[in-house]
């Protein structure tokens, strides 16, 4: 049933290049372009751009060679398999050794080898040994039904051609209204519809059964007639031949019930560390089917890279290294996108990782990645920096002078960990996380959500977090909530968003860190989610009943027990299925309760890691996956092992937020200096140094009030309440809005804006926040009275605002300003104003 077009694409390329090089006979080239019966060829991809062989791979330092895929499994005459040999060196580098390795089959009669491409010759089983530089690896080889050749299938063979040739992308025929009168479903989400449009919409034109080569489908694709999209493939190449053969066979549709499905796609090699610009690695893609067969789809997959300048990838899967950096190389086939991480280092870079006493598990995993990248981390920050940083991050306030002094004067070697523990016990810690959850749950008043509902919802959240409710229980209670929004405030979750599809998307984004919106209308172009899976997930929310309570402001949420989710393309009833999981038995049960039990548990592979990642990002300034709510195959974790470990620890601690925060804040990674060294200057996502972060709106206002000793009055809260305690997302002040407080209109992490603006600068310089608070708080009077000299006064203000003493240089500059002024208090007030306007105050560092 399966044809390997990869083989032919490559064979053709090889033979054409051979002609250019003058190394091959024309017979070979003709035959190579000829069709399914691929002939023996002398060379194999990858081909160098330059006509001279690259320098040979070294044997010194070679530790191991790996052959991918791990087995050759050829079924039917059409099947092909190309293999890739990757060498691992002691210095951490990898090299593509495919063309230089020696291949020895135990029984050479079963397959025909052309370079690294294997085609079937006789049924049976054997092994293949690959050797290079004194190392070898052996993989099993199996050939079955090599005399049979199954007919081509529309879904399995022809549809992939549209993806590979780019026919069904959004800018071409995959557009919602098609292009130039012809439409294909975007990335092939609707095979039946595509079959109809090809064969029935304009009978005899797109597909011409009488004269297959005259089908417009083929004529347009090879540019034989005018085609806006230009030439997509060549007359007689593998893609052409597939479509031609299928039309010749009568353009049959598939019997979908009997057709095997793709159940997985793998990209090899899984990772690579390339040595300098121009280093290469050929990739190979293997698809596995539900009937147990596999297929080399290298020639049918679409290759992508997320960083062209570090690792470019050719349409045939040849990776070429560019500038130093990291790249994620991906292959898309059918609905699957799979990727491999590539690191590119400057050629022959000498590097030694500094010898550090190991921190906790976080540090080991961060160091593993940094070693691969050959990046040396920054040193650990000093105590003064640490105390300010950890106060701002854990409790959202700067330390008072007393707190600062106590920490600095302590000689306890374990004082940092102890401070973390102390801060975790303060109520300000849980307030920060209440505020964060309130953003995720969009707690705000609106036309439909009354102040009372919103307030009860907020207090419910406060209660959950202040009593250290394990995160899984809290989320289960929320998702499975039934009852009135007053009596059981968790039901507000279903009042905030009442439409089923946005609700489905919010659940995925908030609790799994995924944006599945794309899959509402078509298979997700950059992730694994299909339209089917989207609606299967949405089916969990199709039976929510809502009615007004006795009080008109109260909404009662209940399990209606009926209502189905239908697929928008063909109206199929979609049975509930966990996103990326199984289809549970929901008959007669509350679907949301069943979903809640799975979603907030270790069975859901995204729950713990995605929440752990949010916590990590809060403390480190950048997530292991960034943005934190965009987990996606094409947006991989910068350190997958670290993400996994954080999720695992979070699960094992029974979803205890405090223990996760303790792990993070006591790690060396968190305590590093913001100062970069030569090797980590360009790194912003591997935690090799601390990041300078502007303080979030609420915390900044609270910090200003804190150091000026003033109280704020927010609507609905007593005088002296802090901005972080404001329950309603719909209530704000000029300061908070200007500094980017989330409006909570969406659950997106992008709601909180941290970018500096002109309005922020103007407000701090001229606005009533800083100027008025300095006057109101009486700090100046206090300092003027308590501290007799200008130096002492300056030192006091510096400690309050910046948690450090002024440097001698600063004292030299500022003392005369204060001591020689006609109005000393006013001059000191100007210093206070300057401290609150300083970048050092506005940023956590």
């Amino acid at each position, binding site marked *: 049933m399966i044809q390997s077009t990869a083989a032919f694409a490559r064979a053709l390329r090889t033979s054409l290049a051979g002609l250019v090089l003058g190394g091959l006979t024309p017979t070979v080239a003709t035959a190579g372009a000829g069709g399914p019966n691929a002939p023996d060829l002398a060379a194999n991809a990858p081909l160098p751009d330059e006509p001279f062989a690259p320098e040979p791979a070294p044997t010194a330092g070679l530790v191991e060679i790996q052959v991918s895929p791990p087995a050759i499994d050829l079924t039917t005459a059409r099947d092909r398999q190309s293999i890739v040999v990757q060498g691992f060196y002691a210095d951490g580098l990898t090299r593509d050794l495919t063309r230089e390795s020696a291949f020895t089959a135990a029984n050479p009669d079963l397959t025909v080898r052309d370079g690294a491409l294997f085609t079937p010759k006789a049924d049976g089983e054997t092994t293949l040994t690959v050797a290079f530089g004194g190392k070898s690896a052996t993989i099993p080889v199996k050939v079955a039904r090599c005399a049979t050749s199954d007919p081509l299938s529309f879904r399995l063979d022809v549809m992939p051609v549209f993806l590979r040739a780019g026919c069904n992308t959004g*800018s071409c025929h995959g*557009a*919602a*209204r098609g292009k130039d009168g012809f439409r294909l479903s975007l990335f092939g989400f609707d095979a039946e519809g595509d079959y109809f449009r090809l064969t029935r919409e304009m009978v005899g034109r797109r597909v011409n059964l009488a004269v297959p080569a005259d089908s417009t489908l083929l004529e347009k694709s090879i540019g034989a007639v005018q085609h806006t999209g230009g030439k997509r493939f060549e007359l007689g190449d593998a893609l052409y031949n597939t479509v031609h053969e299928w039309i010749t066979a009568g353009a049959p549709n598939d019997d979908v019930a009997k057709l095997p499905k793709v159940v997985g796609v793998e990209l090899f090699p899984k990772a690579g560390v390339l040595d300098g610009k121009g280093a290469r690695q050929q990739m190979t893609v293997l698809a596995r089917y539900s009937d147990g067969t596999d297929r080399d789809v290298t020639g049918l997959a679409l290759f992508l890279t997320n*960083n*062209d*300048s570090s690792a470019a990838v050719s349409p045939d899967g040849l990776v070429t290294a560019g*500038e*130093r*950096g990291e790249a994620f190389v991906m292959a898309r086939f059918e609905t699957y996108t799979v990727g491999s991480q590539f690191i590119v280092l*400057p050629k022959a870079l000498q590097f030694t990782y500094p010898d550090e006493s190991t921190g906790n598990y976080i540090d080991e995993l961060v160091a593993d990645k940094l070693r691969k990248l050959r990046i040396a981390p920054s040193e650990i920050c000093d105590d003064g920096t640490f105390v300010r940083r950890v106060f701002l991050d854990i409790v959202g306030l700067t330390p008072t002078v007393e707190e600062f002094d106590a920490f600095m004067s302590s000689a306890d070697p374990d004082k940092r960990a102890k401070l973390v523990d102390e801060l975790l016990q303060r109520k300000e810690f849980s307030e920060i996380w209440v505020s964060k959850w309130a953003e995720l749950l969009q707690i705000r008043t609106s036309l439909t959500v009354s102040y009372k509902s919103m307030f009860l919802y907020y207090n419910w959240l406060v209660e959950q977090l202040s009593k250290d409710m394990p995160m899984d229980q809290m989320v289960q209670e929320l998702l499975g909530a039934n009852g009135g929004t007053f009596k059981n405030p968790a039901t507000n979750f279903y009042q905030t968003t009442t439409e089923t599809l946005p609700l489905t998307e919010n659940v995925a984004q908030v609790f799994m860190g995924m*944006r599945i919106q794309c899959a509402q209308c078509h298979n997700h*172009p*950059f992730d694994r989610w299909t339209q089917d899976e989207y609606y299967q997930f949405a089916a969990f929310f199709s039976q929510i009943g809502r009615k007004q309570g006795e009080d008109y402001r109260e909404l009662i949420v209940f399990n209606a027990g009926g209502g189905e989710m239908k697929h928008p393309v063909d109206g199929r009833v979609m049975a509930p299925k966990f996103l990326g999981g199984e289809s549970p038995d929901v008959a007669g049960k509350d679907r949301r309760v069943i979903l809640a039990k799975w979603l907030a548990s270790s069975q859901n592979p995204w729950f713990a890691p995605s929440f752990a990642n949010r916590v990590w990002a809060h403390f480190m300034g950048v997530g292991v996956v960034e943005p934190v709510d965009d987990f996606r195959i094409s947006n991989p974790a910068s350190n997958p092992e670290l993400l996994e470990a954080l999720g695992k620890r979070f699960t094992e601690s029974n979803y205890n937020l405090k223990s996760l925060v303790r792990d993070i804040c006591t790690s060396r990674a968190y305590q590093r200096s*913001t*100062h*970069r060294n*030569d090797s980590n*200057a*360009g790194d912003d996502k591997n935690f090799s140094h601390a*990041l*300078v972060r*502007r303080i979030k709106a609420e915390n900044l206002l609270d910090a200003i009030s804190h150091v000026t000793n003033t109280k704020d009055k927010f609507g609905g809260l007593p005088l002296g309440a802090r901005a972080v305690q404001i329950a309603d997302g719909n209530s704000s002040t*000029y300061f908070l*809005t*200007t500094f980017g407080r989330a409006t909570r209109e969406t659950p997106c992490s*992008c709601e909180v804006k*941290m*970018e*500096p*603006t*002109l*309005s*922020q*600068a*103007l*407000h701090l*310089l*001229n*606005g*009533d926040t800083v*100027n008025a608070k300095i006057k109101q708080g009486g700090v100046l009077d206090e300092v003027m009275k308590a501290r007799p000299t200008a130096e002492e006064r300056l030192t006091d203000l510096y400690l309050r605002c910046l948690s450090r003493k002024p*440097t001698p*240089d*600063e004292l030299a*500059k*500022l003392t005369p*300003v204060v001591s020689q002024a006609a109005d000393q208090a006013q001059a000191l007030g*100007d*210093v206070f*104003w*300057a*401290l609150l*306007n*300083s*970048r*050092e105050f*506005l*940023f956590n*560092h």
Partner: protein
Amino acid sequence: MATGCQGPMSRRGFLTVGALGLGSLTLADLLRSQARADLKNYEAIQATADSVIHIFLPGGIAHQETFDPKPFAPVEYRGDMGSIATKLDGEKFSETLPQTAQLADKLTVIRSMTHGEAAHERGTHNMFTGYRPSPALQYPSFGSVVSHEYGPKNNLPPYVCIPRMPNVYAGTGYLSSAFSPFSLGSDPASQGFRVQDLNLPEGIDDNRFSSRRTVLDSVNSYFREREKSDNIEAMDTFYDRAYSLISSQKAREAFNIAAEPDAIRDEYGRNPAGQRMLLARRLVAAGVRMVTLEYGSWDLHSQIVSGMKNQMPPFDQAFATLIRDLDRQGLLARTLVMVSSEFGRTPKINKDGGRDHWPKVFSVVLAGGGAKQGLIYGSSNATGTEPEKDPIGPEDLATTVYHMMGIVADKELMAPGDRPIEIVDGGKVVKELLA
């Protein structure tokens, strides 16, 4: 910072310059400069517009009830509103635009705007960036690109939003937040309108402010020497801009709408449309490069007639006055005014007496700044369903507007990861629109 036809200055460029200034060129900087060296190069082009006033009508305004009425279509297409003659022979506008119709000879009406995004946010993205939305990259808006290419003039921010940033796509996209708009934060139509924090606080005179600044510089220098990061640099930039704005009486005066004679304020109309457009005129006259303002709410799925009757008269009066006033003051020739919306509305009136989203064809109006006056460009078909002649996409419109601003839209800016990205991809300058 960036002026004129200088090379691309981006968030990365920003960083590099900071690093160079402090004499520490790192390997990463070197790589960045190499990546920049690979960028395309262009001949400078002559701008025909110094400034742009972008009037955005959010929600998707009906082309039928504004600049592209269909008086001869059956009533279910035509709708219940009539049409009126304009200054141009044989060309009609909807009855909602009596004053504007009399100035049609100053306008450039594009009736064949088309794109494929029927959702508000996606359509809005198209019309503010010239790009289709991408999940992988945030594109910068017109205003942020203009900020990036030109920087401030006369101590005024290069890009101002009245009263606030109209939507998220009006932001900086992948460019540094240093190129984000200055949002007024309050509506010039409101009583006692004052741009927040523009003036020194009570009790602080220029001398005191300047001594405060000296102290602030002393306090900042320690941190500045030790810490380098994109967001600190951006904050520094905004402080510098704030200083120039605060210390320039002339620049601050541009925001003072109360300085306009009552007669002028009345002529524009004492309502959001009128006062926002009037303030926009004051700002471009003073040197702001790009003013983006929004007016109304045009997502009229039901009762389109009453919706238009409520909101159009202030718009018509304000817009006509704006064109007349710019012309009177000799500013129209160098100021491009653009009226746009995320899409048009369905050809047929729906069961609720409204029209739904329709991106397949709609209208955009340009005036001044080198646009050809008195031109009706392109057309929709008899029922206003699709373009009949000269369809023009968001990328073409954006490319043409940038061209008038003297910016080659094919130029690449540097996105994170040192990815060079064209300002607009694949658009063409529609020469027919140019004077």
